[in-house]
């Protein structure tokens, strides 16, 4: 079948669905939806619509990004704007089905927002809400809107038209179009994509490879997973375009094994591409051949580095090698190879579909387009977002994210994962683009954005990242292998109250040496979390070292739990919950924690009724409590 024929079929299938008199329920069943309990919701919907005798189409879609509200559904009734409902339970489903599907009440009290033409009284428009209004969805254009296991849904929404357009152009024109869009690699380093393609196209050789880097290893980042689960064809179409432009005939998707659903979705998508003649030999009769294989990673952070990734595809230990030669000259099995990450590929298909000028109209002069972020940590609205480059951190954290959880104070935002840094409140108004983040000592990275509040200890966070990079170092370069170990030991000492004068200077010195003495970006950026926390939160390091005090009250060896004798009402809940029997007391007696027995698990703090709030934490100062339980209201 020609592409025109496929497109007609896709359009008619899509329109038939849109015009169906039956109500349609879209449910987010990406990994995050599932983790929040989407499966139970799916069963509840099936049960409830059967109970009311309603014939409805249930479509499983990817993540729309409002993860804080998962599980989430969108209910479409013919002729009405669709309604989103979040934080669902089977009980809420029962009410929605009864009142809105079987009845005429859209239940504004349960609804998040509407989409589409028209309004419903009492329900705001979803995309006008602060969480979505600043967002521009390019890489995530179809996530949450289409069935990711149905290629026709993708095609009906403009899918593969970018590739068709590319086929009508000369390969060099395609590269020029990508150059003109200003697209820079979304994997972290921000290298201009068009230029990277040019190097590979210009490299001599007939056999060339294309690789999609889906080894999203940054802890705290899940944008690529969401794209692959919610819209796999956008990535694969990008690869097709890249392969045509560069002259590659073989492609690999290197994906981490921790993403089983994404792997499943990609396999389904590849099969459908073959069935539609969009993959294989002589694609759509154009004479262009391209094949894609999926390679599952086996759990190694360093394999996100391109030379390590290629070593892993070849069946070796994933260890980076020196560059040059760059992969564009000598990559997989010594052949010219072009590697881009998932989000970059998803952008490529959009650029060819809608044009370089359209894409370049978003973002800043040097950082064009949009960037996806996973906004997580101590923020009210966690989720997956896509924003134009140049937006400020404040707009993201306070506008889209809704501020800090529990009304606490902001301390830092961590960008770029273990290669990035922690940015303090003074930088909240700086724009998010490649240059500004680098100037602040962090990096754009792949898009993890972890918000930290006043209760997060920055020294402990630095230790956390060093622990990660130290265990993920492949061991090839001495500075990375041993230097990170030394830095980690020093940080362990500091958080355990054994910090010494001169530790900060030593950390800075070793950090500098690791940056200079490592082959790949893992070592080259590993000290960043430590260096930026020293740069912006030096006082916290000094408090740990000089006063043996943890200002955030989190480093266990430096804190003590105690019971405020003026607040304790002697209810005994803490004493019963204490796993180490460290709390003495009795009925109507002020309870006392035996500091020698206390394991500092924090259980007493959790269980003490909020109306008393008698359990308190302190660090760096002596605790004044009675040595033995005394009657409530008596003198301490």
């Amino acid at each position: 079948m020609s592409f025109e024929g496929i497109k007609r079929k896709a359009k008619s299938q899509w329109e038939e669905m849109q015009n169906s008199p039956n109500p349609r329920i879209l449910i987010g069943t990406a990994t995050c939806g599932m983790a929040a309990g989407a499966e139970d919701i799916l069963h509840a919907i099936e049960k409830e619509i059967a109970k009311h005798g309603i014939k409805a189409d249930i479509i499983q879609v990817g993540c729309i990004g409002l993860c804080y509200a998962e599980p989430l559904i969108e209910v479409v009734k013919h002729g009405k704007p669709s309604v989103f409902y979040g934080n669902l339970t089977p009980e809420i489903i029962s009410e929605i089905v009864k009142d809105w599907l079987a009845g005429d009440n859209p239940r504004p009290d349960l609804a998040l927002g509407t989409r589409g033409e028209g309004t419903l009284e009492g329900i705001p428009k979803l995309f006008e809400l602060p969480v979505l209004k600043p967002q521009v969805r390019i890489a995530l254009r179809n996530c949450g809107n289409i069935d990711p296991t149905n290629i026709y849904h993708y095609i009906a929404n403009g899918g593969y038209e970018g590739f068709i357009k590319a086929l009508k152009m000369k390969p060099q024109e395609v590269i020029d179009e990508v150059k003109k869009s200003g697209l820079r690699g979304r994997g972290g380093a921000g290298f201009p994509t068009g230029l990277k393609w040019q190097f590979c196209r210009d490299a001599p050789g007939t056999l060339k490879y294309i690789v999609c880097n889906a080894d999203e290893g940054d802890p705290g980042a899940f944008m690529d997973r969401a794209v692959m689960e919610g819209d796999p064809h956008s990535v694969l179409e990008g690869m097709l375009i890249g392969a045509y432009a560069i002259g590659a005939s073989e492609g690999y998707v290197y994906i981490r094994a921790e993403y089983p659903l994404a792997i499943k979705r990609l396999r389904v998508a590849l099969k459908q591409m073959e069935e539609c003649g969009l993959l294989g030999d002589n694609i759509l009769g154009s004479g262009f051949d391209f094949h894609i294989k999926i390679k599952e990673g086996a759990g190694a952070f360093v394999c996100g580095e391109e030379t390590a990734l290629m070593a892993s595809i070849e069946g070796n230990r994933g260890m980076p090698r020196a560059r040059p030669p760059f992969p564009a000259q000598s990559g997989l099995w010594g052949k010219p190879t072009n590697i881009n990450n998932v989000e970059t590929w998803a952008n490529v298909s959009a650029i060819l579909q809608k044009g370089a000028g359209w894409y370049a109209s978003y973002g800043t002069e040097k950082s064009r387009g949009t960037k996806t972020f996973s906004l997580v940590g101590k923020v009210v609205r966690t989720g997956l977002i896509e924003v134009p480059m140049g937006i400020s951190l404040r707009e993201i954290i306070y506008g889209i994210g809704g501020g800090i959880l529990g009304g606490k104070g902001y301390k830092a935002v961590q960008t770029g994962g273990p290669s990035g840094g922690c940015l303090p409140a003074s930088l909240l108004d700086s724009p998010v683009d490649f240059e500004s983040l680098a100037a602040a000592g962090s990096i754009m990275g792949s898009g993890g954005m972890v918000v930290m509040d006043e209760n997060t200890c920055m020294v402990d966070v630095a230790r956390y990242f060093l622990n990660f990079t130290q265990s993920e170092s492949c061991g090839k370069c001495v500075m990375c292998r041993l230097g990170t170990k030394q830095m980690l030991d020093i940080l362990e000492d500091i958080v355990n109250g054994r910090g010494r004068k001169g530790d900060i200077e030593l950390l800075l010195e070793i950090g500098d040496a690791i940056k200079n003495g490592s082959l790949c970006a893992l070592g080259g950026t590993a000290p960043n979390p430590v260096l930026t926390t020293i740069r912006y939160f030096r006082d916290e390091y000094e408090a740990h070292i000089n006063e043996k005090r943890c200002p955030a009250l989190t480093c266990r060896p430096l804190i003590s739990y105690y019971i405020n004798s003026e607040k304790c009402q002697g209810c005994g809940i803490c004493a019963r919950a204490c796993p180490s029997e460290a709390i003495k007391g009795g009925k109507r007696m002020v309870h006392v924690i035996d500091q020698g027995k206390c394991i500092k698990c924090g259980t007493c703090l959790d269980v003490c009724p909020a109306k008393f709030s008698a359990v308190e934490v302190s660090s760096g100062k002596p605790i004044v409590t009675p040595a033995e339980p005394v009657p409530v209201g008596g003198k301490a």
Partner: protein
Amino acid sequence: MKAVQAAEGVPRATQEPDKTLDSRMNEILASFKGEKSEIIPILQQVQQKFGYLPEQAMQRIAEFVHVPASTVFGVGTFYAQFKLVPTGRNVIKICRGTGCYVRGAPRILNELENQLGIKDGGTTPDMEYTLETVACFGSCALAPVMVVNDKVHGRMTPDKAKKVIGKKSEEPQSSDR
């Protein structure tokens, strides 16, 4: 946690007699060509079917793809997914990603370590549970996250984690190994 009675028959994770291992290896290798680039996919299948990488299996793979056994062993020890000792029938993975870390993952791990009486990476003596930490599952918006076998549980608290494990021990075995 009380020891849970093992399922009837031979516990799946014990060392198999050579013959069984050989025939099971033949089954796995039948779908491969014997190229070096297949080492990782083969090891993944072995890990999945056996729950770990038996020494004889790695030697068999080395012969199959024509590399020294040390190469296969080198790959097997490089990647976090591969285990050299048998894992329990239920594998509990606690995410130690940044999103989970700042939202209390260490406390979930502590709770389960206390409940099961094993440390991170350990397996209960009855081979029922293995406790692991994993870099990141990519469900950070629902942090902290734990995965029991293949089911992802989000928004965990120490108490909820305890309940998930409690429920698990009452369910029939569902692992495909």
